[in-house]
């Protein structure tokens, strides 16, 4: 069983369509199966991520906090 961190997670997301499909179906189960090495706050943050959003949709939600 492999171990991945946040950056590796995104590398897999960018390059592996099957991984993307699995994450969209059940992100938490996929991460546990992959043995993801994530801290508690990272895990809880990832639960809030809407994996069905495309990159364009995420981009459209960007806004400034600092002017």
């Amino acid at each position, binding site marked *: 069983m492999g171990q991945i961190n*946040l*950056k590796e997670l*995104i590398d897999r997301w960018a390059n592996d369509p099957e991984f993307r499909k699995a994450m969209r179906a059940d992100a938490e189960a996929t991460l546990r199966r992959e043995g993801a090495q994530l801290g508690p706050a990272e895990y809880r943050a990832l639960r809030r991520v809407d994996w069905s959003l495309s990159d364009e949709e995420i981009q459209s*939600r960007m806004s*400034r*906090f600092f*002017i």
Partner: protein
Amino acid sequence: MQQQNWCQDSDIVLDTIIRYPLTMPVADRGVGGETAGACLHAVDEVMAGARSSIRATVSTPELQQLLEKAISGLEQQIAEDKALLPFVHLPLAVYRAVRGEEAPAMPLAVATTLLFLGIDILDDIADGDLPPHWHGVSLSEVQLVAATLLSSLPQLAVSQMNILPVAKTRMIACLSEGLLKMSGGQLHDIRGAGKSTIRPEEVESSVVHKSGEEGALIAMLAAHMAGVSEETAQLYGEFGRALSTSGQIATDCYDLFQAAESKDFANGSRTLPIVLHLNRLSEKDRKIFLTQLDEARHKKSTRALIQRELRAKGVLRLSAIIVEVYCQKAREVLDKLALATPERADLDHMINHVSFFSKREGAWDR
């Protein structure tokens, strides 16, 4: 309860503004007439308060003029960009979370606005990127304005507040400690500018120690003003740090991917998304990308190319997730503070404004 428009009276000076007794028990905080979003409309009052405080406390006309020019420049930026203003809304929201109302914290919002303005000017000087309203003013004079905004006006404002001496002492100490921490963060920033070998962890650390500490300082000032214990003030500081760190990374993402005119591309700034990508490239691809970054300082078509590459390599998504991690840290501090839902509403709204995944839960509307 209607918000008092104290800033509209030109005779009001800073030391007559605060007349709100800090004796209202937390249990008796009024909810009639005030909505959780009342502080959303505070910006105009705070800017007017900033002008009033300068007129009341700065006796040198030439210095007053320069400081008012700085305020006008900030008002211009605010008018162009309807962002949430952490230097206005964060102190009000924290004070409200503790005391149930934000009106007594308006002078603090004035002080933190002046503080933010000083930091912003120094940032612009370091980036070689002073906005047009400073044309014709020497760099020495602009530096003097920044120094005055950082080192005297906020401190004077706090010393003149009608609050308990222990709160005043804590706020002054907090200001000094916070500014020292931010200086350290700014030094990292200055030394990192233009480097090709900076690591993502270093950039993230720089954001925490600069923007993060600014948020921590603002939140702690409000918490101390509201009379909380040192332990609780530290928790509010953690909240401010996490919120502002996520906010800065979110702002950097916005600048890179959404802004019509990207300052970071123009200045060659090595923000987190850029460094995340640089760090994963081979030596050969890194050299190509660095050349593209140089070209992107002046060429918009190269910017579009870089944006496409960053999206394709998952950098946009990774950056959004890192923002979410810090948003989650901020939420968890609010859980530790054990605030009831109405008390934490504005603070939650601020987190949701920053998060790219929580927009549906509440947008920040000025």
